[in-house]
């Protein structure tokens, strides 16, 4: 039998942390809002330059991408967009998995696949931005940006 405190006795405060759960969900909630605001600017800018300006989608080819990434502005823009959008999207999908996948095994498997795809896509995208060669040798000049032949 457990003894209970006498009525009207002061509330017993355990020393230190009363929870072992941490503030992960709070930080996630804040991240969704902060990254969301930044992504509105980054993605609307991306869509304007790639789909609206000039010839729109018809202008997009290797030379177009190489021309953009010749500028550090677009390298940083795309890098930031990649990281923020992938983490924002993965955290959103994590919430949805938690809501609808009721069996523990299914939930774990879906989250493992989610984390794997997050890591693969972010690492691959980052490597591409930083190791990109706008003028690969032995490629026909008409496929390359004009500054390659200069």
């Amino acid at each position: 039998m457990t003894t209970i405190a006498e009525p009207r006795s002061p509330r017993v405060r355990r020393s230190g942390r009363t929870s072992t759960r941490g503030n992960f969900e709070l930080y996630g909630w804040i991240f969704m809002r902060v990254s969301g605001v930044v992504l509105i600017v980054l993605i609307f800018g991306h869509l304007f330059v790639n789909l609206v300006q000039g010839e729109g989608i018809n202008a997009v080819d290797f030379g177009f991408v190489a021309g953009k990434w010749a500028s550090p502005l677009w390298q940083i823009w795309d890098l930031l967009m990649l990281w923020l959008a992938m983490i924002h999207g993965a955290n959103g999908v994590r919430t949805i998995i938690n809501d609808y996948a009721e069996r523990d095994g299914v939930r774990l498997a879906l989250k493992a696949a989610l984390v794997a795809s997050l890591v693969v896509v972010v690492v691959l995208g980052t490597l591409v931005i930083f190791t990109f060669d706008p003028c690969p040798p032995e490629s026909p000049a008409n496929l390359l940006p004009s500054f390659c032949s200069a």
Partner: protein
Amino acid sequence: MPTAPAGTLYRGREGMWSWVAHRVTGVLIFFFLLVHVLDTALVRVSPEAYNAVIGTYKNPIMGLGEAGLVAAIVFHAFNGVRIMLVDFWVKGPKYQRVMLYVVLGLFLVTMAGFLPRHLGHVFGGA
């Protein structure tokens, strides 16, 4: 573990349906993003490989898909601002329903600006 009966409405109306639309558009954008990073990564393979794959996107069906994707992004962005106003603005919860109609209005204006331009590029002529 108790399971919820299928096919129920939470509270219906604007609040619930905007939440549903936010989830659906969010998942759609996420899966596009996975594909989009992979296809862009082809620039690291060769100019020919990238141009070949991007070339398969340059047809009316994919052009309409891009229009749908932009629509999903525009809704998700504007409704995201609405969610933040509900969270951080004192009167946000009171005006959440009005704000959804503002979101839908701004969505229509944005798409009215984007669609003629983009469809002109896709179908030629503009």
